[in-house]
């Protein structure tokens, strides 16, 4: 897909207003190896028949487009799994399919998540040629021991090299690090983060290690063989992170995402702002708006079953669900308060038919008074202190 060339007949003019903006998430469910901390829908397979997968995505794109007539796609995100295991042709097929079925915004953001092994870095140019304009690189750590602990297939040097290639190829680049690892203290993280910031990318995703159920880390943690930092140290690490990023000109626009102004990930903002998105691929979730109601879509989770369903019945979807209004409210709060901009009041009224005051009742002023939230009539935001204990704030707010 060539977003800035004339061969795409459906490009809308940037001045077109009130168009239905859409994000598209494409899930690629395969990895070279399963990382011990990862609970994503990712699977290790000997052989992947990319042409069958290409065809299946193409069919799902057509079907997906029928549900949202008049939608304008503002972002596409290839996530996983390891999308950098997709052949260039597969990415191209998906992007061309989307361009053929949807209207594409001229400034569309197209991100691909890549793992930094050399094999995968070699494909960067193909992705760029297919239309990808933003790279999200899973560096995870900048030292070999930590990468080994995280069960990663790449070395720190490979990560640095992949980053350099990525920056040469893509206009926008971000990378991920996992910190608050067992035994990591503030000083060690300062050093690692300083190096990360020195690369000078305009966006970083910095996640504290989470022990997810069903992972090998979870098993080890429950046997006492692995201990993550306690909440005090986690808080200290988090505060240091904000401080260093800030000094480097990157703002925490979301709990774990830091960017220079204007370089935020537009696709992910759609999630946090509770916008509309279509999910493509095994296990992908979507959210669409129907008046004031919210529709949740979901695809079959198992890669093989999804593929068989698409090939056999022409659809990999599970039944849609109308999200109950209270649950939808919880989702909005849960996502929106992660952002530094918070939940915009006007947008909230438009999509829910309720005002912020009506929706949250007495809990809101109480949390404002206690310094966890700010509510100024145009948006509700978590204070820095509130954001650090957002789970508690949400529990109190949504009582």
């Amino acid at each position, binding site marked *: 897909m060539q977003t800035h060339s004339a061969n795409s007949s459906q490009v809308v003019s940037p001045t077109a207003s009130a168009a239905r903006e859409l994000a598209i998430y494409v899930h690629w469910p395969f990895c070279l190896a399963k990382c011990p901390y990862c609970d994503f829908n990712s699977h290790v397979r000997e052989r992947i028949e990319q042409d069958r997968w290409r065809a299946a995505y193409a069919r799902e794109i057509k079907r997906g487009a029928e549900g949202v007539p008049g939608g304008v796609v503002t972002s596409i995100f290839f996530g996983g799994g390891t999308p950098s295991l997709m052949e260039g042709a597969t990415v191209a097929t998906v992007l061309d399919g989307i361009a053929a079925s949807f209207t594409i915004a001229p400034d569309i953001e197209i991100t691909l998540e890549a793992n930094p092994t050399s094999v995968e870095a070699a494909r960067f140019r193909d992705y760029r040629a297919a239309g990808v304009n933003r790279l999200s690189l899973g560096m995870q750590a900048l030292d070999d021991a930590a990468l080994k602990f995280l069960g990663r297939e790449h070395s720190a040097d490979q990560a640095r090299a992949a980053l350099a290639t990525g920056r040469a190829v893509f206009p926008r680049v971000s990378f991920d690090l996992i910190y608050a690892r067992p035994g990591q203290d503030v000083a060690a993280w300062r050093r690692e983060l300083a190096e990360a910031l020195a690369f000078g990318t305009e966006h970083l995703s910095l996640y504290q290690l989470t022990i997810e159920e069903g992972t090998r880390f979870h098993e080890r943690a429950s046997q006492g063989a692995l201990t993550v930092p306690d*909440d005090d140290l986690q808080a200290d690490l988090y505060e240091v992170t904000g401080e260093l990023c800030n000094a480097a000109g990157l703002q925490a626009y979301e*709990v774990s995402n830091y960017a220079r102004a204007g370089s935020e990930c537009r696709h992910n903002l759609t*999630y946090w702002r509770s916008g509309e998105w279509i999910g493509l691929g095994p296990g992908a979730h979507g959210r669409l708006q129907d008046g004031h109601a919210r529709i949740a879509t979901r695809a079959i989770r198992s890669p093989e079953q999804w593929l068989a369903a698409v090939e056999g019945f022409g659809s990999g979807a599970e039944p849609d669900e109308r999200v109950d209004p209270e*649950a939808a409210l919880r989702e909005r709060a849960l996502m929106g308060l992660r952002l530094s901009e918070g939940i915009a009041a006007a947008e909230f009224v438009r999509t829910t038919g309720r005002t912020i005051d009506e929706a949250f009742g007495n809990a809101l002023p109480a949390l404002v008074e206690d310094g966890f939230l700010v509510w100024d009539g145009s948006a509700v935001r978590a204070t820095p202190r509130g954001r*650090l204990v957002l789970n508690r704030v949400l*529990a109190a707010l*949504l009582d």
Partner: protein
Amino acid sequence: MAAIPHIRNFSIIAHIDHGKSTLADRLIEACHGLEAREMTAQVLDSMDIEKERGITIKAQTVRLNYTARDGQQYILNLMDTPGHVDFSYEVSRSLAACEGSILLVDASQGVEAQTLANAYLAIEAGHEIVPVLNKIDLPASDPDKAKAQIEEVIGLDASNAVLISAKTGENIPEVLEALVARLPAPQGDATASLAALLVDSWYDPYLGVVVLVRIKDGIAKKGLKIRMMAAGSSHVIETVGVFTPKLKNTDQLGPGEIGFFTAGIKEVAETHVGDTITDDRRPVAVPLPGFKPSIPVVFCGLFPIDAADFPRLRESLARLRLNDSSFHFEAETSAALGFGFRCGFLGLLHLEIIQERLSREFDLELIATAPSVVYRLFMTNGEMKELHNPADMPEENYIEHMEEPWIRATIMVPDQYLGSVLKLCEDRRGEQTNLSHTGARAVVEYALPLNEVVFDFYDRLKSISSGYASFDYELTGYKENDLVKMNILINAEPVDALSTIVYRKTAESRGRALCERLKELIPRQMFIIAIQAAIGGRIVARETISAMRKDVLAKCYGGDVSRKRKLLDKQKKGKKKMRQFGKVDIPQEAFIAALKMGDS
């Protein structure tokens, strides 16, 4: 009045865990009450709590048919009783329905405190007693020593005690023969007017209120209009029957028999354990002796977590009370907890069991407040008031003095642990009243304030004696002491449900220990939490729980929304199990566990 020669009614009494329920299993098997495939270990312990804890809580009655060696057919009514001191009221009721008892003694342990206490109850009830020594399969068993103890400590002839193993079944036939030969047959007159003792009752979802009776005179059968003498109500009998242990309908129940009837009784409050049931048209003039009412010694408040459950709690308490007349309840209100009930129990295990039954059998989520004994307040205006709830304690200047309940404790312990036991009793302000030895074992008697033993004395005693000491107590009366009310403040707000009465002298250390315990029990929250113990206006202890600094999901993208939302819902459910005081969530365990502290 004539003897009913083919019936024998007996209770199995013993110290806790000496094997009563296991012996009942063997007797049921020997008399073919249940088939092998229907048997489970301690089959009469039918409640889940009994099975899980391996203890009997409710006495159970079984009617068995036994053909003796003399060729005669006998009906044996067996009552299996609980051994724990908190349930001794169950024992008394069972004894009143029988003429004899099996006094079961674990031959590897010997006579223990409840062996003694229950043997005395049986003697008082005029029972013929058959001593049976159990667990002779154990290498550590010493039947001769156990016999000697029965004779020395209790004063019963043990020369013809039956030696058995309830586990292997050894000598079970001898037990059956001894029952037939040595226990008296019941007396009664079938032609006289009905006089039946109400032994127990419970609510059955299919049958409604079921009443267990021991018939003294007359006949109970379907269609008879009966009168409950104390309750003053009349009903027509619908069904009569017995437990074999399976429920079996019969035509009638006659003198000497133990069985049940139903009579369309709707009001749980109409059945009083110990009441006399008689023929409505031909009532007996004098009711049967009945039972001594039980006196609750520990009180606590029970409050529904969800205020809307209050009516259901009332109904559930009434049903439980039908089945357990030894606990008491009345409505109360708490500033912190809203509407609930003040409940009285025979001990802390009893309290725990009732609480657990309420949550299991009635699906109620409850908060129990700090348990308390009953104090007597002598007011400056000359009045005397009983204080069941520390929250109700008036200002100190209205109180002239206070008294607290005392008990006489009997402790049996092997000599090597005597020192630690004496120290424990002294630490609890006990006064020794007697000390004697039989063999290598000591029998110690102490006067102790009830308050000092109610909460954790039993656990401590067991732990300092490696489980060998046994303990029994009875209330003796009230004594004056210097007592004060200690308030607990959470973020400067007093929580009435956590206030306790303490000795002025030990108030500070008690306050410190309580604050420390609460600090462990209350999870960290968004705020700093200050926990203070105060006497009057004076703070005697303080702990702080630092604020939770970080609790946020690191990652949350489009695919996570549903899952993370459900996580939030789950967290909210967890919060429901807590009670909010100001902004602080206090888990329900805090209220009771705070008081079950080690020495303080």
